[in-house]
């Protein structure tokens, strides 16, 4: 009996690790299935929530694992959204709506799934190039530098009509992000994030988050590890951006800019900055709350009738987010992964 103990313990550890992926994946699938049981006017809320999960988990891959705050990840969402959007508009309408594009972009159109892959590749490449110099920075300097990336990306996308619609709305994008693609897309992002954080690279980066000096002392190249995470995060964020543009069918540069940056970061912190489970829960909870409040502005029945005054949605959303952060600054998960055991003490 004694000899089998380490083996069973290893089994238990595996089981626990499996649960850490299974729990967020189950929630994502549940939301995906849920979307097909509600009226078509409510379906958009569920799909929005799934795309939010993809964006927030993408941000988590860098911010959560490295502990470095970045305000720049939404620039990769923007790059992904416009890459996928511009490349999937049907050829016959492209000449009319985007006449000034580079010929290469103007004369080619790719399929929906290919556009998701292309967006991820472009986003990853962009993040790698940006991260190469920027990942040397820490703390506030890193935060402001990544914010500068967001500003530059927004400015270029908004003004350069050879690569996109400029300041006008990009429209006529095929709306292919239905229940299936949104669910599978979110699952892909969650699984990649999970695989990364369990991998050697992910563990090296998390070690540097806990103590950069000690990690460097045992030979971890903090710069290189942060760069990998930044690149992966950029690719996933761009993939999520592609899902977003295919969900909405049209997009402007303002939709993937400051407000999205703040709300997705708030989702991540509300859930718990340092865990995948937290990123998923935070995204679902805040977007669920937002959906509920916008319904409540029209009057909604939950046992009793909730009827909020017009325009009060954002007030409540802001107040509830602020309250959650003040009352539970470590996030609803406390930054821990999903576990059936109740743990006490410091988060892992």
């Amino acid at each position: 009996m004694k000899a089998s103990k380490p083996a069973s313990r290893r089994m238990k550890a595996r089981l626990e690790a499996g649960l850490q992926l299974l729990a967020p994946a189950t929630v994502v699938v549940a939301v995906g299935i849920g979307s097909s049981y509600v009226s078509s006017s409510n379906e958009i809320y569920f799909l929005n929530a799934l795309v939010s999960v993809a964006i927030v988990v993408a941000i988590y891959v860098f911010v959560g694992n490295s502990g470095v705050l970045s305000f720049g990840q939404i620039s990769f969402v923007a790059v992904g959204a416009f890459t996928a959007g511009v490349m999937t508009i049907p050829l016959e309408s492209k000449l009319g709506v985007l006449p000034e594009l580079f010929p290469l972009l103007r004369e080619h159109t790719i399929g929906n799934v290919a556009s998701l892959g292309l967006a991820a590749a472009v986003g990853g490449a962009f993040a790698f190039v940006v991260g190469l110099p920027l990942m040397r920075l820490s703390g506030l300097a890193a935060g402001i530098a990544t914010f500068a990336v967001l500003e530059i990306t927004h400015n270029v996308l908004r003004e350069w009509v050879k690569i996109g619609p400029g300041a006008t709305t990009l429209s006529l994008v095929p709306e292919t992000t239905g229940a299936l693609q949104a669910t599978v897309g979110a699952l892909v992002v969650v699984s990649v994030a999970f695989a990364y954080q369990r991998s050697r690279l992910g563990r090296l980066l998390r070690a540097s988050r806990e103590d950069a000096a000690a990690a460097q002392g045992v030979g971890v190249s903090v710069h290189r590890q942060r760069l990998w995470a930044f690149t992966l995060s950029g690719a996933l964020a761009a993939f999520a951006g592609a899902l977003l543009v295919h969900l909405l069918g049209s997009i402007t540069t303002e939709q993937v800019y400051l407000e999205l940056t703040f709300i997705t970061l708030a989702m991540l912190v509300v859930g718990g900055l340092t865990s995948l489970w937290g990123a998923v829960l935070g995204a679902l909870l805040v977007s669920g709350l937002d959906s509920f409040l916008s319904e409540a502005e029209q009057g909604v029945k939950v046992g009793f009738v909730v009827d909020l005054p017009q325009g009060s949605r954002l007030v409540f959303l802001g107040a509830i987010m602020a309250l959650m952060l003040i009352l539970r600054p470590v996030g609803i998960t406390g930054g821990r992964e999903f576990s059936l055991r109740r743990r006490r003490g410091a988060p892992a």
Partner: protein
Amino acid sequence: MTGPGLIAALDAQTVADAVGLGAVYALMAVGIGLVFGVLRLINFAYGQLVMAGAYTLAFTSDWPVAASIAACFVVVIALSLAMERAVFRPLRTQSPAVMLVTTFAVAFFLQSVALLIDIGDDTIGEPAASVASLNQAIDVGGVDVRKITIVAVVTAVVALSLLAILLARTSIGLHMRAAAADFQTARLVGVRANTVIGFAVLLSGVLAATVAVILTVQFPLVSPDFALRDTIVVLVGVVVGGIDRLWTATLGGFTIGFASGIINGALPTDETVFLPSAVFALVILVLLLRPAGLFARGPSSGVERV
């Protein structure tokens, strides 16, 4: 006026406006830097304090000017202290990321409240015209300078001088400097945390109200995102200048305001569309070369490079 004379006058004009903008940004930078000094917290909701002040000015437009400005100060200072009590105090021991994101949420909340109040009359934006007469220009040595520019610069110089005296000569100033240098040790030797933080927040509220008065003269239409863009630019300037010390932070705020003023005035409109890219590329460059801040002396203990 002949060609070269026109250009020279334009330049002096641009410089005057740029100095005015730099002065306003310097005031905001001090307000943000004071709170950061004692709390290590970047208050993103600082712009919403200015916005609240601007709305107060707008809603009291038909009051006597002095009463309107007094109301602005009362509202902003009260809101600033309330923010400290309700938000900053419970978060005092949290990580900078959590504190910053919480102030996002607070900013978002205040902005939506303002929107809700503002659309009460079915239009967005309220005019604040009580001190609009300061927007007129006077001739100073052949250059048209708006009175408000002079007011802004004088106010900034006076406020910063008073602050310098306060920090250097009074006991509360000494406590604040001690707290900014090392909060834990300062508490051990008898500095009262709540007093020092409260005082810093109070001063930053006074500065926000001052900025509200100056900005509403230049931009009389008050909307919920009033001063939002300015706050973001000032935050960038503060970090680029060096947030660890109040003076480098202030200088950073002034520099980014002055630089935007110069660039904005010097270039024709059709060439300015990619200007934000150029400015922020410069920001990245400075941060890479001097992560502790452009004006910081020597390597800073607080910022590490990897």
